């Protein structure tokens, strides 16, 4: 329980007592009749009512008879049935629903008849058929036969709102759940009611629908790939809340029926929020994913990526059997042979070439997508079997400062700032973090307290997401976040001093030296709390598991002897390697120089790393890859061990709050988890790694616990860099991942990709003029270049922004740099 929840529970709640269908019920003041009825188990049919949305009274299906005491104390009935979803309870009110009042029953039946007048009743071809509230309630509260003999109103079907969301206006009952959701929750009011009377319909801002031109969205609207003014990362939720089949998704269109599907609860593998989802699968194939109601994490909503990006794990390049390189070709082989070959190869590659020469080490790249258990197994394998601290789960830019911060403030600290506390925080400062692009449902939580919360974003420009949060911009050149935090305006500091204020640090805080130090200073001087919200699902778990070069499980520092001794004792080994480990970039560089002989690589996409992955893979004597699919790294590996995707294994993601989000196997296959594969591989050395099952790993993690006194690394102390002189023809690169882009886990889903935003280069007017750029720009480094259309944006001068991995803009692969680097910008020829 959070502190705030305790407080509100302690406050006396004013209650109201009323009678519903002869049952007396006491509910808090301000409760809607429909909610009060739910509490006594009386179900009133409804379409527009949704507990997470504001009352609308649009569909009129929930009509009930209401009588309440007048001024004289006598019960006075309302002349007509009232909508129970908009009326709040009053003391002594008497409500009669369809169960006890003939009038209410008649009214509901009449409304149902009217709703069905223009409904096409094409249930056999409708995706909602079988799980449709309209279908169900027409059965329970409708007339058995239609009296309507005239021609129904028809519309073109379906209307594609985006490449993913399809609208069938004939089926719509105009409950406005989707438009209210879009306005209230997501803030992307891309659809709205149009026209009047019988022609009233939901539509986009498209002249054809409006039937007259001259109308454009008022606000700034990002464009999707098709160049149309619609883009929302949360549009899939409208499909789930639509009480009829009016909104359907292109990915699930006509794919199956609810009675075909087996539903399994799961946790989304796409971001660090750990959203609860439901996987619906048929004959071992995932057909769709839905949001599960989880009041403490994602409430009722998930991002489109969580919902639609699941095809990646069953694409044609899925690995099911181990591969071993023989005569230059990867060939399928048996598990025992592959494990033996992997062990022999690693041994040979890490053996000293001569007696007097130093033996090359081994390195382990984990990637940020693995579960807590897998990350634990990877780091234990590195430290116990390979005898090295060269293990890093950060397949992105990373710094020692970040590691010191994570070790001292994050790892093993349990539940920190929660979603609920973030929502209630009076002020939130976002550093190196774009809530909409990198936070997923974090954005929805922040938007929920729009108007009650001051949000300050330290970023190069005010993104559309930040605008929707009504955020204040502290325009910052990437890499200079530390000084921006140190020089925050006095009013922002004041708001941060309010109890409950939060400073959010994203994964990009590691790209700007001194940011963590400055954030810690700011937190200690204002009393604000710190939350680290990484992007990938496995990041926090990897930190907890110690899959970082300088961290052991539970936030213990590798550099401290008592910490090493404690872990060594728990693992039953004599000693742990004490030499400081290298981070991802360090491991790749060392491998390229031949100082690392063998690489064990988990779920890492080569295109996410700005280091020279090909050189490292070529130079390394032996590469073992644990992969779900034939990735770039798997293709270059000497032994490839297939592992299970999240839906086919049990495990735990630790979300950014520090909440353990365990999930069980949704689809049973014979695919093994990384931790089990590593356990088997360790046996080739005669080592019992003890990571064979999730239970074993969790028991070991629990017995290890968090770092004790004197075992944690010291808080970071890094200096902010001095601003470098601007060189003519260059700009500082600002870049981050957009939520929907060309990430490895979004492959195979063209409908979702179509809702992504067009890749553009953003420059301020002054910068563009100084660089002589208009129309299109070429951003280049020594490694390569990217050509993108230019959008002039109100932003920090001397900065160029491009997306990290959107179509036509793969920064790490093509430019080999990260944010904060100086790149040359030219107008395209």
């Amino acid at each position, binding site marked *: 329980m959070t502190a705030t929840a305790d407080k509100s529970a302690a406050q006396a709640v004013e209650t109201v007592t009323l009678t519903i269908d002869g049952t007396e019920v006491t509910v808090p003041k301000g409760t809607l009749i429909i909610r009060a009825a739910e509490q006594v188990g009386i179900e009133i049919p409804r379409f527009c009512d949704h507990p997470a949305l504001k009352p609308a009274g649009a569909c009129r299906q929930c009509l009930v008879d209401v009588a309440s005491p007048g001024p004289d104390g006598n019960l006075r009935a309302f002349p007509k049935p009232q909508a129970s979803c908009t009326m709040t309870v009053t003391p002594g009110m008497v409500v009669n629903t369809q169960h006890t009042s003939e009038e209410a029953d008649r009214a509901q039946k009449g409304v149902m008849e009217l709703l069905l007048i223009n409904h096409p009743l094409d249930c*056999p*071809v409708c995706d909602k*058929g*079988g799980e449709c509230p309209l279908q169900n309630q027409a059965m329970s509260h409708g007339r058995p036969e239609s009296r309507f003999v005239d021609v129904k109103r*028809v519309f073109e*079907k*379906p209307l594609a709102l985006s490449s993913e969301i399809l609208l069938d206006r004939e089926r719509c009952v105009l409950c406005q759940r989707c438009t209210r959701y879009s306005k209230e929750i997501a803030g992307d009011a891309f659809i709205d009611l149009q026209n009047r009377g019988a022609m009233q319909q939901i539509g986009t801002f498209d002249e054809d629908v409006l039937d007259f031109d001259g109308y454009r969205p008022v606000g700034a609207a990002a464009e999707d790939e098709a160049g149309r003014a619609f883009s929302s990362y949360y549009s899939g939720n409208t499909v789930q809340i639509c009480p009829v089949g009016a909104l359907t998704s292109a990915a699930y*269109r*006509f*794919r*199956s*029926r609810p*009675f*075909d599907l087996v539903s399994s609860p799961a946790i989304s593998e796409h971001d660090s929020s750990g959203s609860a989802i439901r996987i619906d699968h048929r004959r071992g194939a995932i057909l769709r994913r839905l949001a599960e109601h989880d009041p403490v994490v994602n409430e009722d909503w998930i991002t489109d990526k969580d919902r639609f990006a699941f095809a990646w794990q069953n694409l044609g390049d899925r690995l099911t059997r181990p591969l071993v390189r023989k005569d230059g070709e990867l060939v399928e082989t048996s598990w025992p042979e592959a494990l033996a070959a992997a062990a022999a190869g690693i041994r040979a590659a890490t053996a000293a070439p001569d007696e007097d020469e130093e033996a090359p080490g081994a390195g382990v790249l984990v990637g940020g997508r693995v579960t807590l258990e897998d990350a634990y197994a990877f780091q234990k394998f590195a430290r116990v079997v390979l005898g090295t601290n060269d293990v890093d789960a950060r397949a992105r830019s990373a710094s020692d400062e970040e590691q010191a911060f994570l070790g001292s403030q994050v790892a093993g600290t349990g539940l920190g700032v929660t979603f609920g506390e973030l929502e209630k925080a009076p002020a939130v400062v976002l550093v190196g973090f774009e809530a909409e692009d990198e936070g997923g449902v974090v954005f929805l939580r922040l938007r929920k307290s729009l108007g009650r919360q001051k949000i300050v974003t330290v970023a190069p420009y005010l993104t559309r997401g930040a605008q929707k949060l009504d955020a204040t911009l502290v325009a910052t050149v990437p890499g200079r976040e530390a000084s921006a935090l140190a020089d925050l305006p006095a009013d922002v500091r004041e708001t941060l001093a309010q109890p409950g204020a939060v400073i959010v640090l994203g994964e990009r805080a590691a790209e700007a030296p001194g940011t963590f130090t400055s954030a810690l200073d700011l937190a200690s001087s204002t009393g604000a709390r710190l939350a680290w919200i990484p992007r990938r699902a496995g990041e926090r778990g990897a930190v907890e598991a110690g899959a970082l070069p300088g961290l052991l499980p539970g936030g213990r520092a590798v550099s401290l002897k008592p910490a090493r001794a404690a872990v060594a004792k728990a693992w039953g080994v004599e000693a742990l390697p004490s030499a400081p480990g290298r981070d991802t970039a360090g491991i790749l560089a060392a491998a390229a120089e031949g100082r690392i002989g063998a690489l064990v690589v988990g779920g890492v996409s080569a295109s996410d790393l700005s280091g020279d992955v090909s050189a490292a893979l070529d130079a390394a004597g032996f590469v073992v890859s644990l992969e779900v699919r034939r990735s770039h790294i798997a293709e270059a590996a000497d032994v490839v061990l297939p592992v299970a995707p999240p839906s086919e294994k049990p495990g735990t993601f630790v979300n950014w709050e520090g909440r353990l989000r365990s999930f069980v196997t949704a689809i049973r296959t014979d695919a093994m988890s990384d931790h089990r594969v590593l356990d088997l591989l360790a046996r080739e050395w005669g080592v019992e790694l003890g990571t064979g099952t999730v239970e074993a790993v969790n028991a070991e993690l629990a017995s290890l616990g968090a770092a004790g006194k004197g075992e944690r690394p010291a808080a970071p102390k890094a200096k902010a860099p001095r601003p470098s002189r601007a060189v003519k023809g260059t700009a500082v690169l600002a870049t981050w991942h957009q939520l929907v882009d060309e990430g490895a886990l979004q492959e195979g889903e063209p409908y979702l990709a179509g809702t992504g935003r067009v890749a553009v280069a953003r420059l301020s007017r002054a910068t563009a003029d100084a660089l002589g750029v208009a129309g299109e720009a070429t951003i280049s480094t020594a490694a390569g270049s990217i050509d993108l259309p230019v959008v002039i944006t109100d932003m920090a001068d001397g900065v160029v922004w491009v997306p990290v991995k959107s179509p036509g803009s793969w920064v790490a692969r093509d430019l080999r740099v990260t944010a904060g680097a100086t790149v040359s910008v030219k107008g395209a020829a």
Partner: protein
Amino acid sequence: MSESDEVWKVNRERDGKRETFESNFPKKGPIGEALAPVAGFGVSLRNFFRPTVTEQYPRVKTPPMPRYHGRHQLNRHPDGLEKCIGCELCAWACPADAIYVEADSNTPDAQFSPGERYGRVYQINYLRCIFCGLCIEACPTRALTMTNEYELAGPTREGLIYEKQDLLAPLGKNMLAAPHPMVPGTTDGDYYRGDVTEPVEAQIDWVREHRPDDATLPDNREQEREASRG
């Protein structure tokens, strides 16, 4: 004395008490009594002069009653488009879980049935089917009906899972094989009301353009007829 001996003894005592059986049929007269040993031949004799009921099944196939529940058939609209829309209501209704359907979207390049949806995969497992006909009642487009074909046996299990091509009704006289576009200017509603009676020139042109070798094209039918004549 063992228990079974006891039982034997009790049973024998009961036998002694039993009354002898007497039939309540009328007693026959003396002639009847005399002919009784050969009376049974009368039954045989009488049937010599009656028509035979034995069916010479494998050699002579007797048609069953018109509403006999035999093998299923997936019907077509008069222009050759499939009636099945892949709604899975048959699979839902099936008490034996014998039907498996996967639907898909019709596209302008591949229109299999009128409207947006068609059945991409359609399987009936005749090892499971109990021929109850609930699927027929469930079908909203009258795509699924039952034929009178009753010869459903085979040497393999796989062979008794009938796929869509095994179940589809043969193409009628003028029908044009799917996929091809709907009759221009019509909706799926016009098809259901029976307003489409034959393929129109636009559809034939489309097939001619996309599948010039299609055997159901009028020109190709003509050629085939001539070839069979000559």
